[in-house]
């Protein structure tokens, strides 16, 4: 039973449970190396047979669906510090998925390094924002500070400080969005 399950069985108040899970983090991530202050807000599905490293202050949310981490035997998943994953995000590593620091992921983002047709490591730089429902295909590298728009299907590399939109995603400079305010 996870720490969260034990605390629930002991009737520890919900806020205290979640605070403890956030402070400790380790219980929700079997077979992972987890940094300080990282954790999952309620549920997360973890199936790690390879190597998974999660940095400091990484938070996984769970709403209508839990986040899912799957790392196959011999594969590697690396998540940097200060990353934030909204509910339903799926990270699947059969080879390597590497995510930099300070990245944010909207709900139902899907990242996989193998999809039956293609395979290859997926690499995200620092300060990347991936919006709701985006799909990052195998072999894709996303540069520092890039933005992936909601619903985008990224099949090619995204240069640093650009924005990817559409299916298949096309790349445009951030200047095409930053003046509009609010969401890109």
């Amino acid at each position: 039973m996870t720490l969260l399950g034990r605390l629930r069985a002991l009737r520890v108040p919900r806020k205290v449970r979640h605070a403890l899970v956030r402070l400790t983090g380790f219980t929700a991530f079997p077979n992972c190396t987890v940094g300080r202050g990282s954790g999952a807000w309620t549920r997360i599905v973890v199936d790690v047979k390879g190597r998974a490293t999660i940095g400091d202050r990484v938070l996984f949310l769970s709403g209508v669906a839990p986040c899912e981490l799957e790392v196959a035997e011999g594969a590697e998943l690396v998540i940097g510090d200060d990353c934030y994953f909204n509910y339903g995000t799926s990270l699947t590593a059969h080879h390597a998925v590497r995510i930099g620091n300070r990245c944010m992921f909207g709900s139902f983002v899907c990242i996989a390094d193998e999809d039956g047709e293609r395979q290859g490591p997926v690499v995200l730089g620092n300060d990347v924002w991936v919006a709701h429902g985006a799909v990052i295909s195998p072999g894709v590298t996303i540069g520092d500070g890039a933005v992936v728009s909601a619903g985008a299907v990224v099949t090619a590399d995204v240069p640093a400080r650009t924005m990817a939109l559409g299916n298949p995603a096309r790349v445009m400079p951030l200047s095409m969005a930053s003046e509009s305010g609010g969401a890109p």
Partner: protein
Amino acid sequence: MSTPRERLRGFIADTFFVDDFQDGDSFLRNRIIDSTGMMELVAFLESDFHVKVADAELVPENLDSIDNLVAFLAKKGVA
């Protein structure tokens, strides 16, 4: 037959429900079109004007106003 300028203005009015703007007004600065709307605009250029827009051409200098769009289409051979 309507001019490219009229067709562009008609598309923007029909799609984004805005027609109170000048031909030189910036779509982005005036919040007429956001980035997702820009992709709709590009799809319109490619389907209705039969031009191919490369990713490198997705810049405000080409797309951010009616005047810029007309000049861009002229460079692509659309009069």
